[in-house]
């Protein structure tokens, strides 16, 4: 907006164009969820942030510029892992990857979650990133989403209106898109009581700590129940009840190949620097059979 200086008899003044500076966000550090929801509602285009491992990287790259940041790091109820009376495991959304990787309660079929956590990025990033941030970010290359889908897990979502639980296999909707509604945050991940058994997260990446080219998460219960999910092969991790039923009934090479065919048919990967879509589809059957062979061996060893 340039004022009419000449008209006001001020032609000697330099007209000043007021440049709209890109906003520098404020950071709030609420101590309770209620306070966090109030802040989220009060600030348009605000983003909740916990570890910052992905959001700050995106801000540094100029991809996002939130108007305000609501830090969830000082809300005690969001952190830590607890076992409920019924034996289910509750992982607070702001629990860091490294704390999950070394937690001795994630055993049996839930071991796949700790195994995936141990393979995320690097030690320094695992000390920052949180499981709630990972599932809310929903990058198809992340390690937690397929690992959680290989267990019986649900995402607890909280908002000013209350809390609801979304089964993990319904949580991821599309590229970077989840069942979260505006104003909602991930408050916890609930894992059903782990069964005796084993879990494995097989990750194929260019270098240790990179995003997966393809990853396969498997849990194998001692009663024979198998749960499988494949990461980095489409907008959301691949998993299906039919594949799990087939493999739970029969882990033979023939059935494994049929299950792999179903997963390949579901896959919709992209070509990127990590690998072509075709290469990723080629890897699915090979990695699935390797993962199943490994969990079977681990299961025998455990027994």
């Amino acid at each position, binding site marked *: 907006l340039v004022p009419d200086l000449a008209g006001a008899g001020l032609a000697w003044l330099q007209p000043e164009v007021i440049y709209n500076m890109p906003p520098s966000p*404020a950071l709030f550090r609420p101590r309770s969820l209620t306070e966090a929801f109030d802040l989220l509602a009060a600030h348009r285009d605000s983003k909740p942030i916990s570890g*910052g*491992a992905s959001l*700050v990287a995106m801000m*540094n*790259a100029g991809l996002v510029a939130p108007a305000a940041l609501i830090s969830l790091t000082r809300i005690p109820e969001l952190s830590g892992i607890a076992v409920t009376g019924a034996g289910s495991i509750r992982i607070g959304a702001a629990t860091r990857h490294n704390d999950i990787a070394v937690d001795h309660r994630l055993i049996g079929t839930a071991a796949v979650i700790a195994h995936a956590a141990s393979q995320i990025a690097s030690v320094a990033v695992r*000390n*920052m990133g949180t499981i709630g941030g990972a599932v809310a970010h929903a990058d198809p290359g992340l390690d937690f989403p397929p690992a959680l889908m290989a267990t019986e897990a649900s995402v607890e979502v909280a908002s000013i209106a209350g809390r609801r639980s979304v089964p993990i296999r319904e949580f991821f909707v599309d590229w970077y898109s989840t069942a979260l509604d505006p104003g909602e945050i991930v408050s916890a991940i609930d894992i059903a009581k782990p069964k005796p058994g084993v879990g494995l997260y097989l990750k194929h990446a260019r270098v240790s700590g990179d995003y997966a080219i393809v990853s396969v998460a498997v849990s194998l219960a001692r009663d024979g129940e198998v749960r499988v999910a494949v990461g980095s092969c489409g907008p959301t991790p691949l998993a299906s009840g039919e594949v799990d039923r087939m493999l739970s009934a029969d882990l033979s090479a023939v059935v494994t190949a049929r299950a792999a065919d179903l997963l390949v048919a579901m896959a919709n990967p992209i070509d990127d620097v990590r690998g072509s879509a075709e290469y990723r589809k080629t890897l699915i059957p090979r990695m699935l059979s390797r993962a199943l062979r490994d969990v079977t061996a681990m299961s025998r060893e455990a027994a």
Partner: protein
Amino acid sequence: MTKPSAIELEINGTACDVRASGSDTLLTVIRDQLLLTGTKRGCNQGVCGACTVLSDGRPVRSCLSLALDCKDRRVDTIEGLTAHPVMQALQQAFIAAGAFQCGFCTPGMLVSAFDLLQRKPASVKWRRPRRAVGQFVPLHRLQEDRRGGAGRSSDATGRGRQVNKLVGSVVGSPVPQLEGREKVSGSAQYIADLYRPNMLHGAVHQSPHAHARILGYDLSAAQAIPGVRAIVTGDDLEDHWRMGAFIKDEHALAKGRVRYVGEPVVAVAADTETIARQAAAAIVVNYEELSTALSPEEALAPEAAVIHEEAAAYIKVFDTGTQGNLCSRTSFREGDIEQGWRDSDRIFEAHYETQPQAHVSIEPCGALAEIDASGRITLWSANQSVFRVQANVSESLGIPMSRLRCLTPRIGAGFGNKMEPHISQSP
């Protein structure tokens, strides 16, 4: 715009007063405000590890940690940890083993290794490092040795023997790098670690197009930002000010036409890095997109748009057969090739291709210039070829070489990318 908040951070055991806005990272604050430059900015994406610090005793990436969120935490950087005996043992081991080349990410490696030793002391077997020749030998003793030393014969033959002994003990033995101590302590200074009083910061508006004509610039929004001191475009450069290692084909800033994505188009100098970047982003350049040729085959097709129409007139260090879009042609023969074909049982003929590779060093490019009252320029830059930088800057900015002194601080690798003078910018 939200004003930066004043906060107190505990860095290396000291309470430090800093100012930060919500998006300022811990890395920015410890480097730019506390001048603790041992923590390096490499990728700014949490991947490279050069910015690793300890937060409450655990390693984190300071480039991904928001400064305001580090309140109530204890932060330790390489500068503070250097006082710790375990860190000192690690640093000596790094020096003895020559465990660094350019040293840019060495502070980050040491902080990570320090954490590993704290968490899993038993996982590492300490081995007394093989003593490198000259290591930790005080300078006066070395000079004594060279002079023949106390109690040694000082006649001509004795001195000769002594020199031979010294040479004999160096050849075949590991010699510690001269700059080892500065690299392991974080005090080695790379281009981004250099400061001059009242210095301005630069940012560059880069081309978003592979091939386009520049129709005009709208600099008004950028000029209106408080703190912007100068804006330079290709219009400020003479047409014959061209530089290049072999073919002088490029202006310091694009003139009339851009020929690749990322080509520098407009440069801004401002009071702070933030203002400079904001101004660069506020510059509007009107482009008319031209047809592109994005593969060698497309570029050599007869109908392809010629990227350098004046190529024939360019100064070339030697003629490489430049013609149209063909930059250089190489063919060579060795021995009797026809005889070789005749003697071959089988002949395979094919078209071979190799992928391009970017030489991506962790340290980006950069430069710092100071002009004295007589107009003489001292130019520090991250480069691998300081005299080529002097020649090219002189050619591209019309500055006589006699007024331009070029210096190279430590560089965070180059792999060939830092042969020519250039600066680079991430968003």
